[in-house]
């Protein structure tokens, strides 16, 4: 890929520590060359979120899903082991499984009836005797596995690159925030049916920025904030922070954007729920200890796991997966993750509350979609401009805190800068980052949540 002729103008990112500015070249959202690089360098060489183990709870369960443009089968074999196979017959490449989901011991290609077990082994080739090398030939024709698959707290990740470091090394500080989700309820969490599948006319990185951007909440979600305030919740952006977790992962910690079902009560959840919340919160303290229970229960987290997973651990819990389709189009998939054991009234409240905010029919997400689509259209204004310095988006907010070593606020743009700094390394553009002035050493600040 490195030998491809270079058409994207350098630099992609300009950090200026004298002026305290951080600017991103808008070609990053528009360019077909950048998109191809992302597919080749990022999606083919890092861990990707595939799905949640509870989507395929029983032996023989399967789902099909496209990741990095590649059709995959995500399944549990008859012995209970989780697999990810290329959904493509090793014979001629036909899509092997044409159902979206189901349960099966065998996958049979309709084209020539080659048949495979759900652990990937070849089960049958009609008239196999016609192949000279017989058994050797058959042995070479098992389903093609995605080279790496590891699971953390039920979240299943895969990599097309066999040489990536272990998953936990890639997740780094992000891993513990996923553990916190599993710790919210004694019986753990499960995904539910009812997956939101939609697609936006915007670059995938606009969806990442939006999720790591507390600055937009008040103006973009004006109507939702109004709804919360009317129902009696004191919405605020004070004393809330954004964290770079390294490896491109980011975190917003929010306490003023809404309650948390069964953990932090607010008036719109109703009086009955207040009692259940107090009981569950007390159980959490007994089970986890006061400090840990505080971090698990009392603050909302929006976690971005580079490059394709967003966890909205807010009123309820939504898993959002980003699948870039083109520079200006991203498929989005969202699952609701809920406690396995839950009071039916709390469950009903949770389901209605979560989708009242998130998803293309919510009272808030459509305004986010409007934002990334409006950016995607708007940045045409400076494309190929005679004044190329205009073709940059500004993400400087809060850089002074980075110099001081102070923790960045959720309403600043530090988590976005962390993402972009990792992105430019990940796409392998050596001259993509221009740094003016002296970069402070300490702008990656984690936190102790145990």
């Amino acid at each position, binding site marked *: 890929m490195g030998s491809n002729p270079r058409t994207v103008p350098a630099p992609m990112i300009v950090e200026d520590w004298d002026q305290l500015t951080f600017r991103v070249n808008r070609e990053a959202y528009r360019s077909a060359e950048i998109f191809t690089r992302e597919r080749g360098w990022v999606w083919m060489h890092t861990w990707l979120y595939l799905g949640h183990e509870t989507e395929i709870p029983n032996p023989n369960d399967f789902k099909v899903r496209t990741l990095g443009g590649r059709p995959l089968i995500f399944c549990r074999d008859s012995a209970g082991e989780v697999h990810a196979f290329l959904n493509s017959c090793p014979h001629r490449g036909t899509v092997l499984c044409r159902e*979206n989901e189901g349960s099966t011991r065998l996958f049979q290609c309709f084209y020539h009836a080659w048949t495979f077990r759900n652990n990937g082994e070849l089960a049958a080739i009609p008239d196999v005797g016609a192949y000279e090398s017989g058994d050797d030939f058959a042995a070479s024709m098992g389903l093609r596995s995605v080279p790496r698959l590891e699971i953390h707290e039920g979240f299943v990740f895969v990599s097309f690159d066999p040489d990536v470091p272990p998953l936990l090394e890639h997740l780094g500080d992000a891993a513990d925030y996923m553990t916190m989700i599993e710790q919210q309820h004694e019986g753990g969490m499960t995904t*539910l*049916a*009812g*997956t*939101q*599948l*939609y*697609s*936006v*006319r915007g670059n995938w990185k606009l969806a990442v920025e939006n999720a790591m951007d507390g600055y937009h909440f008040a103006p*973009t979600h*004006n*109507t*939702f904030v*109004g*709804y919360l305030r009317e129902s009696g919740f004191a919405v605020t952006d004070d004393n809330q922070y954004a964290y770079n977790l390294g490896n491109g992962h980011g975190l917003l910690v929010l306490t003023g954007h809404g309650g948390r079902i069964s953990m932090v009560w607010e008036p*719109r959840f109703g009086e009955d729920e207040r009692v259940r919340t107090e009981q569950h919160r007390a159980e959490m303290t007994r089970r986890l200890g006061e400090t840990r229970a505080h971090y698990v229960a009392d603050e909302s987290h929006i976690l971005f796991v580079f490059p394709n997973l967003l966890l909205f651990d807010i009123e309820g819990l939504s898993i959002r997966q980003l699948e870039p*389709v083109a520079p200006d*189009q991203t*498929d989005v998939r*969202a*699952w*609701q993750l809920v406690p396995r054991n839950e009071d*039916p009234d709390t*469950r*009903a409240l949770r*389901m*209605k509350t*979560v*989708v*009242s905010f998130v*998803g*293309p*029919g919510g*009272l808030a997400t*459509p*305004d986010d*979609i*409007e*934002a990334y*689509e409006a950016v995607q*259209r708007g940045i045409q204004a400076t494309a190929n401009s005679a004044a190329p310095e205009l073709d940059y988006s500004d993400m400087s907010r809060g850089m002074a805190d980075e110099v001081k070593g102070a923790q960045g606020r959720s309403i600043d743009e530090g988590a976005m800068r962390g993402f972009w700094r990792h992105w430019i390394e990940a796409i392998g553009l050596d001259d993509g980052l221009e740094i003016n002035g002296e970069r402070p050493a300490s702008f990656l600040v984690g936190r102790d949540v145990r």
Partner: protein
Amino acid sequence: MTTITSSRSVRCAGRTVTRQDVEDFLYAEADILDHWDYDSWLGLFEEGARYEIPTTDYRPGWSLHETGSFVDDDWDLLRARVKRLKSRKAHAENPHSRTHRLVSNVRLSEHSEDCFQVAASFVVHRARDGRFDAYVGWYDHLLVPSEDGLRFRLRRSILGHESLAAGARLSFIL
């Protein structure tokens, strides 16, 4: 042998409601929505009514209380949705989408003593931002006859799509 059930009318709450009555109601609703008259639209619901859009993987019999969905509005949320749509700060619908609705294949069936079920097909075209999207699906409503005419108890739109196409969203009323 296939039996075709007549659905020209149903008896409900001591009244006879005809398919023509229901078609008039659905056509009027379509016109109200296409003209962005949300106060009048809310007036078509009985108090406590619901508005639902299941996800595209929906299977009959699912409860939206136990699955993910696109819209799961109770009466409070439905009113909050209308209030939002009337605001200039509902950015996803400011400026408003232009919509054009076709309603067809209307069928009536009995449901309970005081409400009956309506099935119908819809095609909603939506123009915005230089694009033109089509939403195709069917309605699965519960209606209540009242002194002032028909009212929604449950207004449910079920999409016929495998997923929402690029740019398609449910920021307006489907």
